[in-house]
């Protein structure tokens, strides 16, 4: 009797205790969904559904003129993707985008890290003011920034005036295919080094001071402290900044669009700008295919970098 009753009693007790716990959990879940609902709705409306629709469009010959009769397009399979990879402009733009990443990421990180280091160690009293000054480009309207840069690199602009002052003839920066890309990259660096600096500064300030004091007592100089303490302990921040910047430069659009519109001779056209130009030309199918290729590219690079991040930290 005892042996048969005991489990039943335990079961009954468990059931009565579980009921309010389950109700509480359900309530918490409902509240969580309630808070998540606005984001989820916006995400579905403006990100997920358009992304899926773009995948669908990329498999059709949808064009601008079809907006009047959107149900009357032809399914073309992977035709747009094949055309994309046969288009010299697109292949060139993949190269340009790689160049944006290869030049922009290390430069932005280098400038950001150097300034963060200077602010963290040297210029204590002016740290707040300088942090604001260096962060200003991040919050500057990109259109205004591009106009300033356009003026600065105009044939009669301030850069060439400065060169003329020391007896040098300045080139037409934005009309030269070899010079336009560095100018556009520099605008990207100027707009982003502040973000990198702030993140690096936060990382630097999180490193315990006593580690440096112990190292100094053991005779480690500034360079050895940087090499064996700062850089290793800053690795998670470094990897995070590199992921953020890589994703940014892979999708770079504002800078080349506003400064050169991809010219001269397509030398600064990024994949994102190619997508935009195709869309503007009414080639919605091609544009969607290009945007999907970019999505895959960004996803692959991000996954690789995140894996790297996880294995190193």
């Amino acid at each position, binding site marked *: 009797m005892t042996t048969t009753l005991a489990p039943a009693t335990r079961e009954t007790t468990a059931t009565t205790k579980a009921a309010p716990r389950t109700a509480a959990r359900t309530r918490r879940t409902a509240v969580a969904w309630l808070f998540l609902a606005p984001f989820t709705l916006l995400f579905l409306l403006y990100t997920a559904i358009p992304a*899926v*629709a773009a*995948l*669908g*469009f990329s*498999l*059709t*010959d*949808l*064009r*601008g*003129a079809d*907006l*009047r*009769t*959107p*149900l*009357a*397009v*032809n*399914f073309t399979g992977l035709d747009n993707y094949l*055309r994309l990879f046969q288009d010299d402009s697109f292949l060139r733009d993949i190269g340009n985008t790689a160049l944006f990443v290869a030049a922009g990421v290390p430069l932005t990180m280098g400038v950001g890290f150097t300034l963060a280091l200077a602010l963290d160690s040297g210029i204590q009293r002016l740290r707040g003011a300088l942090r604001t000054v260096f962060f200003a480009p991040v919050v500057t309207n990109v259109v205004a920034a591009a106009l300033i840069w356009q003026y600065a690199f105009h*044939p009669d602009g301030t850069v060439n005036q400065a060169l003329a002052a020391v007896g040098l003839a300045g080139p*037409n920066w934005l*009309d030269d295919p070899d010079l336009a890309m560095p100018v556009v990259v520099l605008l990207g660096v100027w707009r982003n080094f502040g973000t990198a600096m702030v993140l690096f500064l936060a990382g630097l300030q999180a490193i315990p001071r006593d580690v440096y004091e112990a190292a100094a007592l053991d005779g480690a100089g500034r360079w050895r402290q940087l090499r064996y303490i700062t850089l290793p302990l800053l690795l998670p921040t470094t990897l995070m900044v590199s992921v953020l910047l890589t994703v940014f430069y892979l999708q770079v659009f504002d800078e080349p669009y506003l400064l050169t519109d991809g*010219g*001269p*001779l*397509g030398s600064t056209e990024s994949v994102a700008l190619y997508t935009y130009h195709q869309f503007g*030309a*009414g*080639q919605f199918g091609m544009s969607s295919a290009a945007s999907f290729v970019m999505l895959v590219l960004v996803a692959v690079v991000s996954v690789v970098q995140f894996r790297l991040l996880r294995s190193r930290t």
Partner: protein
Amino acid sequence: MPELSRRDALRMTAGMAVLGTLGLTGCGRENATTAAKASARPVDDSPATGTVSVWAAQGDANVLDKVIKPFRAANPDATVTFTLIPNAEYYTKLQSAIAAGKGPDLAQFFPESQAQFLDPSTLRPVPEGLVAPDDFFTSLWDAGVVGGVAYTVPWYAYTYALVYRSDLARKAGVEAPTTWGATVPFLKALQGAGATRGLGADIGWDVFNGQDVAMYAWQAGGSLVSSAGRWTLNTPAMVDALEYNASFFTSKAADTGGPAFLDAQPYFVSGKTAAMITGPWVIGQLDTAAGKSGWTASHVATAPLPAGASGRVSFAAGGSWGVPADSGNADAAWKLVRYLTRPSSQVAQYRAYSSLPAVASAWNDPAIKGQPLLDAYFTQLKSTRAFPRVGTWQQVATRLGKEMEAVAKGRQSAAKAAANIQAYAESVGTGTK
């Protein structure tokens, strides 16, 4: 909520994409050529009634409210409402509204870029007898005609002509060129008379440059689309056109580095450039750029474009009117169009905004005839052509503009550029599937 595995998520995504695609393709494309050519009811002379909503691009339409005052007085039972939209966004908004069936009763178009709208599913055919096609510059009227059906009525007109510094030409002792061969020597002579560059060339390398080269190809005897409706861009005439355009830069008569769009007039006034191939609006703006009233009259002259092997043909551009197929008050909309194309209304529009008449007889009005700098434009307007009335012309012209850049900068031969643009045009087709 069950947790989705990665495979489930992938399946769901693929499924939605396929469903989306099938949804789009399910009905198939209705062959445009089978669309009925609806014949519009003739428009009588009775006063217009009801509300006419008008959409137009900001610019020449800004003064319409003032210009149509007599129309309002003569049609007291009609209400005309205007929606003016920034130029750059105009077609996008109009196209979306028409696609949604929420377009206006009357819409402005641009003859040089309206081909995508010329379809019975979008616009109503112009009623027989509403206006006399012969009253307009031929190419402007033609720009609205597809398959023998007119969908738009011209409103104002412009084309390109040569605008140059007459003071420098006098100093150099040269006359405006009448042929391609004489053009670069003329521009170099202006340089010799003190200008930094003979020509302030358009260096946007965009759709407008594409239009320029299309114009040169016509001057060289080429056509852009064959009578069978196929692109004909890889032709000797196109090669000649690209080389002619490049000759401005290779001869150093023009600079690939500028002036950029906003610099064009200050550069011209200051003598950094001595000529422009441009529209008539520039004339009214040079006094302002110079900061001196009367500067234009004493420093500027105009001439029709130099002729190529096949003449001095240019392109027809400006504004036009069309009534969307969904218009709820087409009758009143057409009556307003008829009013706007009367010679007296055309002159009123010129007085209010300097919009040049699309109706040839209105050019005889003293207000216009007394402007000697407009003579070259009037002469040129009589020798214009409409751009191809195919839906992808704007795309092709934009690509043409980009190909021109490589030729002008010596990075690509004209023959290769012509081959490229032909290949591109064939890949995008003519907008019909």
